[in-house]
């Protein structure tokens, strides 16, 4: 099953640690908030992703199994 990083933008306060721990998929915007790449994470990178998730002080990042939901506005 492919894994995705999901960010809770309300919980996130732009600490920025995740971008340091997982630069392959997370960069910061002009205000220091993480822009999370939405492509699925290859197994080789999963360890980095887990570090970023574990070290987020706001518990704003989660590693989830991809699923489709009817997206709504």
């Amino acid at each position, binding site marked *: 099953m492919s894994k995705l990083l999901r960010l*809770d933008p309300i919980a996130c306060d*732009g600490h920025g640690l995740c971008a340091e721990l997982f630069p392959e998929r997370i960069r910061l*915007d*002009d*205000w220091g*908030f993480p*822009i999370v790449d939405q492509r699925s994470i290859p197994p080789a990178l999963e360890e980095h992703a887990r570090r970023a998730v574990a070290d987020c002080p706001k518990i704003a990042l989660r590693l989830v199994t991809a699923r489709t939901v*009817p997206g*709504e506005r």
Partner: protein
Amino acid sequence: MTTRTTAAPAEAPHGVARLLAGMRDDGRPVGLQEHLGLHGPLVGGSGLIERVTASGLRGRGGGGFPTGTKLRAVADQRKRPFTVVNGTEGEPASRKDKALLRTVPHLVLDGALTAATAVGSREIIICIARSAARERAVLAAALAERRDKVHWRLASIPDGFVSGEETALLSALGGRAAKPTVKPPYPFERGLDNAPSLVQNAETLAHVALIARHGPGWFRSLGTETEPGTALVSLSGAVRRPGVYEIELGTPLQGLIAQAGGPSEQIDAYLVGGYFGGWTREADLRLTASSGLGAGVVVALPTATCALAETARIARYLANESAGQCGPCARGLAALAGGLEQLASGKYDDRSRLARWAQQVAGRGACHHPDGAARFVTSALATFAAETDTHLKHRRCRHRDRGVLRAAGA
């Protein structure tokens, strides 16, 4: 279901005025007996979801989501769902939901009742903005006329651009601030009191009331193949008769303008889709959700106003209306507004950063507020590129901001 069936079955409306067919000239609301005389009794809910799905109806609250799919998703949940009528209409340039609720309340109530019955709800909550006193009075009177086997509740939601977003609405109903929450969970799976919640725009439900009566074939006899039916449009700006119009989906912009008596002065550009929408100068643009109609707001911007100042003012309004919960929305929209204000005053050319910021904020919030605001700003920069050059060259504009684009309270 409505039990009173004193009226004989009425014929399906023939013309483009479907929802607005019964609207009275004196502006007073259509009462229950008059409503039943006009549209006939509300027929049973069995097979409603299939009929709505076959009709191809899409939500009229701005998202354009297929209504049949949503009804099915809610009906398939294990817990008993709530049905929520979204009549908050927080966008200042939008008038259509209030117009419907004020003039033909029973059409919206019928739609809510059939939809609720189809998904198995026992409670229907009608949400309107706190400031909508007239609509509240009309709805209370309309509810008093009905004998339905559901529990109706009329709720007032704090005014605000974002309070009509479905999770903000559900938060307010749950006694919390009217601010969006993170999805998933989506309202269709877990909403009010953790129960599945069917949230539909007031106009969407009015269409459902007619599809229940006249069927999907009738519904599809107007509109396009992919976007059938009619839609309400709130038209303002430089036209002779601004107001709420019902159009066949796919109608060219100029057809709508003609319906409103034509331009009242020279028009420079049209805003289609309101403050989440985009600018165009193509008068033959066909109005559909996929061409950006959104919740049906169209503004004809006259040549004799400063387009940049108008846009900057609305960008600032949208920034102020951010729920302030998500970093990129709170910080980014303020940055966009500031950059536009600099451009409008001809002081500073920040266009490359504006483009980058617009790209950065889109899709980065718990709700679609930043996406819509970014679309609005991006499209203004593209459409008014020549004006921007002039502003920067002369450090001023020939026109002042006449306030054609209305912000709340203005």
